């Protein structure tokens, strides 16, 4: 099968989970004999065309920019569409697969131009991410609806997301397939010197490292974790917090951290390298995922693969792969007291935490492999190609 895959982020252009998802899926599809052509945006230092086995990556530069975000989106879609039209003179694609709304205009045009079926993966919705409070959000919501309307099949990563897509966009249940996210567990098997890693992050041997990883945006709920810091510090004075990631909300989060009186316990790392993140995750005592909106929550899966006990909001996709007090610990979203309780519950019960980690690892290895995701995705392709 020849797949034209569209995504606005693909490594090294990484924003959230979509780049990782597309890379994992493309590699696994290629391993199963499919030819995958990735159409994406340029990134400084990355080549505009690259071949990685049977994966071809077309990074397209938008030759015209515009200060307005939505206009910029339409402009880069135009240049991606041109690149696809040029490529289609040489490659007869069987199916088009678009991830999220940002590259949907190009994908939809190409669907009508090439008369090939379209698969749309909805990783999240504007309504869930931000709410529909401003005109731009209504426009994005409209693009998302248009994508669900034009797609021959819609893929979502969780049952919670399926409910959201079917309910909000009035899509028939039979049009939507649930294919969960996955991770490559191999990098997590590499041993790390925990003591050295912790020392590098300023964690003394007697201290406990609480890790939180995510884009610094409101839906990740990091402010509630920051409000939990003073609560936890009363019970666990040895706790220290490292928050990995960056985003437009960072100044506000740093303001909360400063106001907590516990700033010295909290490190904001900004973006760090993949390997540093894996080493840090493997060296943490507990990982917290305090999201208030989470269609899947791949970061929790990464924590589970790394062998760190996970404390997560009981919300969205997280509820579908974490089992409370068997593979992780659930806390109430938007509730600092509950988050502090969850962390303390892990830190107070070493044996229990070890048992949770063992169960969690088994679940990750058994269920969330890219090979399985690629097999299910290829079946969706077959269904729409007919």
């Amino acid at each position: 099968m020849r797949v034209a895959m569209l995504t606005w982020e693909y490594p090294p252009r990484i924003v959230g989970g979509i780049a990782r998802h597309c890379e994992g899926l493309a590699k696994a599809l290629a391993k199963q004999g499919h030819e995958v052509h990735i159409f994406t945006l340029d990134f400084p230092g990355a080549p505009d065309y690259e071949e990685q086995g049977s994966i071809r990556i077309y990074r397209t530069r938008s030759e015209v920019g515009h200060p307005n975000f939505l206009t910029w989106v339409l402009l880069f879609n135009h240049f991606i569409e041109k690149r696809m039209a040029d490529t289609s003179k040489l490659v007869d694609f069987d199916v088009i697969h678009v991830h999220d709304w940002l590259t949907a205009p190009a994908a939809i045009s190409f669907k009508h131009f090439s008369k090939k079926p379209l698969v749309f993966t909805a990783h999240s919705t504007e309504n869930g991410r931000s709410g529909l409070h401003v005109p731009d959000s209504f426009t994005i919501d409209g693009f998302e609806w248009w994508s669900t309307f034009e797609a021959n099949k819609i893929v979502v990563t969780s049952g919670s997301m399926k409910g959201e897509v079917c309910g909000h966009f009035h899509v028939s249940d039979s049009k939507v397939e649930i294919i969960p996210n996955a991770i490559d567990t191999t990098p997590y098997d590499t041993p790390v010197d925990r003591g050295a890693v912790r020392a590098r992050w300023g964690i003394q041997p007697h201290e406990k490292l609480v890790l939180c990883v995510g884009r610094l945006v409101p839906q990740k709920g990091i402010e509630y974790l920051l409000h939990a810091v003073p609560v936890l510090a009363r019970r666990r004075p040895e706790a220290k917090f490292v928050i990995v990631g960056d985003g437009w909300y960072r100044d506000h989060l740093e303001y909360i951290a400063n106001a907590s009186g516990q700033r010295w316990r909290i490190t904001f790392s900004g973006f760090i390298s993949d390997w540093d993140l894996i080493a840090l995750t493997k060296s943490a005592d507990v990982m917290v995922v305090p999201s208030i909106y989470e269609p899947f929550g791949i970061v929790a899966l990464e924590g589970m693969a790394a062998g760190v006990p996970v404390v997560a909001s009981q919300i969205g996709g997280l509820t579908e792969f974490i089992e409370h007090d068997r593979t992780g610990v659930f806390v109430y979203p938007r509730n600092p007291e509950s988050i502090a309780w969850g962390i303390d519950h892990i830190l107070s019960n070493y044996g229990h935490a070890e048992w949770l980690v063992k169960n969690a690892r088994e679940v990750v290895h058994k269920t969330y492999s890219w090979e399985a995701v690629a097999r299910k995705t290829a079946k969706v392709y077959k269904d729409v190609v007919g």
Partner: protein
Amino acid sequence: MGLPSAPKVPEEFRVLSMMHNIGAITPERSLTADELSLWTEIDPATVKSHMQKLREGGYVEFVQISGIEKYHVTRNGIMKVLTLYS
């Protein structure tokens, strides 16, 4: 459904985002503070102060051409901007 209203996006972040959207992401497409001021309708002194803060965070870099500083968004700056939209 949705989130409660959040704090406003900081002005320097809006400038960073605008720089990204118009393509100032490489040294050859960098812009002066005066040019950025025209795009954003923010006075040049404020633009310079925003650029200083963004430089300290590693989100923009500048090149000097004929003694004039011209700014562009770094890789980390691009990733930061994209968090606004995903």
